[in-house]
């Protein structure tokens, strides 16, 4: 495969800076939420910054795993956002039924966003860091790792508040299916990698 042109390299560099800045800015904002659920929302945006970083790495090193990493990270962020949306979008009510499930689902969503095992987010982050190193961006990889660790701060404050809503009926079923998907992707990363490769091939990108 031929080396990327100067223009492609420049675009890749700009995209990597934007991705790192987005992840950093969103993590800082997530640490100071103005309203319940806002911290989670900012962390979803921070997760999107990692997608941008992986895409930038794919531009800089086309032979690397950037595209695969971007696809898995995007999938993880979407799963986490959907899980969080299902939990946080519920109105408060007095009954305790469904609250335990909502708390478990929200915890799983946070783990996915933070890139922690046993969820698919762990493997997504590993591949993003690897693609950055393959592109020769060691500094960016270090920043991405540090920002990822800093994500614990908003997670602690959000999880200490508990889950405001409860999950019941169809929403509960959807949440359980999505949570299982995130868990299966984490326990069997081959499944996540194969799905990402299949999607990329279907889109004609790879």
């Amino acid at each position, binding site marked *: 495969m031929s080396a990327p042109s100067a223009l492609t390299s420049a675009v890749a560099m700009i995209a990597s800076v934007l991705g790192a800045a987005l992840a950093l800015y969103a993590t800082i904002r997530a640490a100071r939420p103005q309203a319940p659920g806002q911290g989670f929302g900012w962390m979803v945006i921070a997760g999107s910054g990692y997608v941008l970083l992986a895409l930038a790495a794919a531009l800089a090193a086309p032979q690397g*795993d950037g595209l695969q990493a971007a696809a898995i990270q995007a999938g993880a962020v979407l799963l986490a956002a959907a899980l969080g949306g299902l939990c946080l979008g519920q109105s408060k009510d007095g009954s305790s039924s469904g609250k335990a499930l909502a708390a478990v689902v929200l915890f799983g969503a946070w*783990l996915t966003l933070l890139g*922690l*095992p*046993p969820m698919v987010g*762990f*493997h997504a982050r*590993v*591949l993003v*860091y*690897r693609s950055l*190193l*393959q592109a020769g961006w*060691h500094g960016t*990889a*270090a920043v991405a*790792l*540090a920002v*990822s*660790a800093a994500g*614990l*701060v908003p997670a*602690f404050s959000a999880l*200490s508040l508990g889950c405001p809503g409860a999950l019941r009926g169809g929403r509960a079923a959807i949440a359980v299916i999505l949570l299982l998907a995130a868990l299966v992707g984490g326990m*069997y*990363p*081959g499944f996540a*990698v*194969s799905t990402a490769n299949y999607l990329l091939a279907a889109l004609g990108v790879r």
Partner: protein
Amino acid sequence: MGPLRPDTIILIWLLVLPFFGALCAALFPRLSLGVHSEREAEAMRRGPFLLGALASLMGLGLGISLFPSAVGGSAVTADYWWTKDLYHLRFQADALSAPVLVALCGLGLLVHLHLAGHPLTSQPHHRAALLLAAQGCLAGCCLSADLILICFLLQLGLLCLWRLVHLDAPGAANSMLSVTFVGSAAVLGGALLIWVRAGDSSTAPLAMLLTAVEPSALAWMGILVLVGLLPLIASFPANGWLPRVAEEGFSLALAPALLLPVTGMCLLLRLLPGTMTLALLPGLGVVALTLGAATLWWGAIRSLLTGSLRHLAAWLTVAQAGPFLIALGAAANANAPSGIVRGAALQALAAPVALAAVWLATNTIRCRFGTDSIPELAGLLKRAPLASLGLLIGGLSVAGIPPFPGFHVQRLLMSGLLASHSYLPAVALLGADAVITIAVLDTLRRMLPEARPPLSARWSSPWLSASVALAVLALMLASVAFAPLATWSEQALRGALSISGGGLFTPR
């Protein structure tokens, strides 16, 4: 169907343990619905912990059964498909990981027994489940032969311990996870660097694959792994979480205090002398020696100045990381004799057993007398002789006093340091040992005179005394029968730890 292969048993055990714990968590609240009196509830509360102890005992048996073949040089491996081209679900019970599996299960057994007798234990099913899950993940981490799998299981184990400590002390648990997670992120960074440069994430062939890597990149890999694992072994300056957990966590502090150092030391041995040639890592020796001396002295001085037993236990835990790091740093010297790495490997097993005696004795004293403040415990030696014995011999073993296992470790280290003309670390080691000895003896001296009025004791469960007695027994056995451990360390050096040695670490 043929007999189960040992590697299949390892995998089944690793997978079953967390789920077994979770099952306990699911079952016991329902069982307790049928309980109508406090006495019945008290009896029922021990159930999850005793089941946890049984599971740990099974793991202990598995580790012991693997020991002969692992020490004999024939490592038991299990290789499963995880991702097609990237990284693998690969476990290896070799001369390093089999004894560590025994240590993790043995220490877990003691913690389960202790919690079974703890009077303040609420949510027993959650505690037993999380403790079992943490044991399973950390054991899996030590048995892993893939860099990414190591990071995966390490972070999962840290999460389990975080949830466990969070039940008693949320603030301290968050502090613990923050520090250890930053460390694990650094380890992941080092692992990724190795993976990208070597082209393989499996630990076994790394030494060969890394020979072409430039020294600066090698140094980064080594430093990231070393610095990343400092919080786990409670080394200076990443040791702040331990006294905080001891202060706020009370009964559950001993779980991370005992399980994390064993895991951290095993991983340091696996990833540094086991996969990279220490002598080829510029700067690593100096960093490890400096951190080791600082940790040893910091722990020793703080243990001398402390006024409570739980802080004494915490600072002794910090101090035990010092000799290990000094050994690792001294081994980076090309002229270092093999005894130094052997000493480090033995320290990874001997120190946690000694610390188990100290932690369990401290918690038992606190349960029985309602305090662990040293000035308030005058007369303790007469009222609680077993717990006092645990404190004494555990503390003296950490200080390297004969005939305890710590002495044999320090003897190996000292002879290695003197043989490689590293006089300054040798003096630092001796001096800190003297300070720790004074701290332990002074603590016991202050508890010797009879108090007026006499110290009043509450009733305490026999499980507490049983856990202390077992820890004391394990330490005594390790003192008396040190020869098999020394033989093991030689075999570990020939097998798991000499991959990168190229003759450097061949036992003399």
